[in-house]
């Protein structure tokens, strides 16, 4: 829109002004609804216990404290869980990108019989209920002696990260101009050289998008982590926080201050990642969903 009509639109009648105010009330309502639980968790995490467990509820801490964070971060089991989550999420992302980009190159650039069948299978997997394979995976993991191993998670998480990676990267590969690839072939490059030297560097934005989505999905996973690991040294953060609030005992049955601090610690990297890469994430999500 050019400047002139916008300036004209600013001269409004009182009725329009009221409508505009109402509109901003709606926007504010959307914002409060969206971010309040997160803000409340943060406010709760910096309250000392006597302010947390008091009625009427205090909406702002009188004596803000980082004690809950100190306790949580000094907790060895929580540290291990954080490390486990990083290991699992990074590995799953790396494997998904490595394996998925190969497939995406074939699907985006080659015409071959069975191509659409492969695409349908990949798309079908994105709507797959994890629970439908839980029993068989559970048996398989026991058979390969992977129970209570991070490897079991890295392997099984591919079931939801890989199809997504292939699907979105195929779109990116298709969008790369064919001339660049053909020039490389004329210069005598093999398919592998074209893939590693031409296609991969050009697909970096797509890799970043799908990589972030795969990382977030792996970081958030709970069902497989709960089912395939057991001891505290193998838990991921989602499992650890859940276990943390059910097993701890003390003056108050659940250490809510620490639970909220842990929640903030686990969530903040994701929120920062999301806000920094919001455009990419939105593009990736809508590409994955709308094309399906």
């Amino acid at each position, binding site marked *: 829109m050019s400047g002139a009509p916008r300036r004209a639109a600013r001269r409004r009648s009182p009725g329009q002004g009221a409508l505009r105010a109402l509109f901003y009330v709606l*926007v504010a309502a959307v914002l409060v609804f969206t*971010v309040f639980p997160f803000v409340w968790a943060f406010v709760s995490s910096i309250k000392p216990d006597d302010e947390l467990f008091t009625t009427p509820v205090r909406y702002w801490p009188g004596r803000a404290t980082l004690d809950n964070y100190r306790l949580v971060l000094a907790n060895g089991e929580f540290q291990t869980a954080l490390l486990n989550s990083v290991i699992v999420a990074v590995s799953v992302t790396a494997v998904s990108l490595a394996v998925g980009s190969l497939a995406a190159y074939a699907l985006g650039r080659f015409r071959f019989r069975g191509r659409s069948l492969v695409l349908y*299978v990949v798309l079908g997997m994105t709507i797959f209920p994890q629970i439908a394979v839980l029993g068989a995976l559970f048996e398989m993991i026991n058979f390969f002696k992977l129970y209570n191993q991070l490897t079991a998670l890295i392997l099984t998480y591919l079931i939801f990260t890989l199809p997504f990676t292939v699907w979105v990267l195929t779109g990116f590969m298709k969008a790369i101009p064919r001339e660049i690839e053909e020039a490389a072939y004329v210069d005598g490059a093999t398919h592998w050289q074209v893939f590693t030297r031409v296609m991969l560097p050009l697909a970096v934005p797509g890799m970043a998008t799908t990589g972030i989505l795969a990382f977030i999905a792996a970081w958030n996973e709970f069902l497989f982590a709960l089912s395939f690991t057991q001891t505290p040294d193998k838990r991921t953060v989602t499992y650890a926080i859940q276990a943390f609030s059910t097993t701890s005992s003390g003056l108050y049955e659940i250490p809510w201050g620490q639970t909220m601090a842990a929640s903030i610690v686990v969530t903040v990297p994701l929120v920062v990642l999301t806000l920094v890469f*919001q455009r990419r994430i939105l593009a990736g999500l809508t590409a994955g969903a709308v094309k399906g």
Partner: protein
Amino acid sequence: MSMPANPAATSAAAPPDHPSLDARRQRRAWLFLLPTLAVVAFIALYPLAQTFYLSFTNARLGTGEPASIIGAQNYVDLVQDSYFLDAVLLTVLFTVVTVLGELALGLGVALVVNSRFKGRSAVRAAMLIPWAIPTVISAQMWKWMYNDVYGVFNDLLVNQLGVLDRNVAFVADPAVSFWAVALIDVWKTTPFMALLLLAGLQLIPHDLYEAARVDGATALQQFTRITLPLLRPSMLVALIFRTLDALRVFDVFFVMFGNRPDMQTMATYAQQTLVSVSNIGYGSAISVALFLIIAVFIMIYLAVFRAEEA
């Protein structure tokens, strides 16, 4: 440009659609696909087939006894299992309530963030926060807000607004716990629904609204005659995705209610049977049942939308 040093490249002098070259490209394509196909076969297709097979057996883990095929016995037991039937009912009710709520709210939010206003991109970014927070963790955050004594909701409703005269045990009270958990799901996914619908809204050409305005159409007419019909494909996709997610809901129920018998979804019941009880055969039958219910929902959606198009 340099001469091709690779002798294989000299064959490129032949017409590009030369059959041998084409066959080689076909083989090469499958080679690139091989790792993905191996992973898919290993962790998805084989386990899926295995789950169907296991559902007809009495397989248990840790007994050391080999499983034997018992026919449809698990399914016969399922239809007489009141815990299972309650779980089906609860899951379907949860799906209908949350998906309808998210569709209505999401459409409203999408229309709001589709208009021009200052700070619009900041609001759109903030909407990704609930999506990014792991469900297990958002469930903990809500559980704290729902706390019967120290929770912020009870304070707001009783002390600040005076809507209620005494505190409610949102999580423990069977009369309200279903709605409490449904609200968490609506909170978490309404923004995501709104963003999908927003993407659909942005595909609608602007001149349609201009033309409608010239013809004297009211805002409501523009909404019902232009926005809704053209948004239908995006709505179908969003509905299918959300329905599938809601039917397999696990995390939020597990965190809120653990193994409480009156608050089991099909997924929590299946997980408990498979992992805690190690009854692989029966648990697989529950998984298959969930799979079938999902298939039924997809067919209903596709049939309804196709019927409308005709």
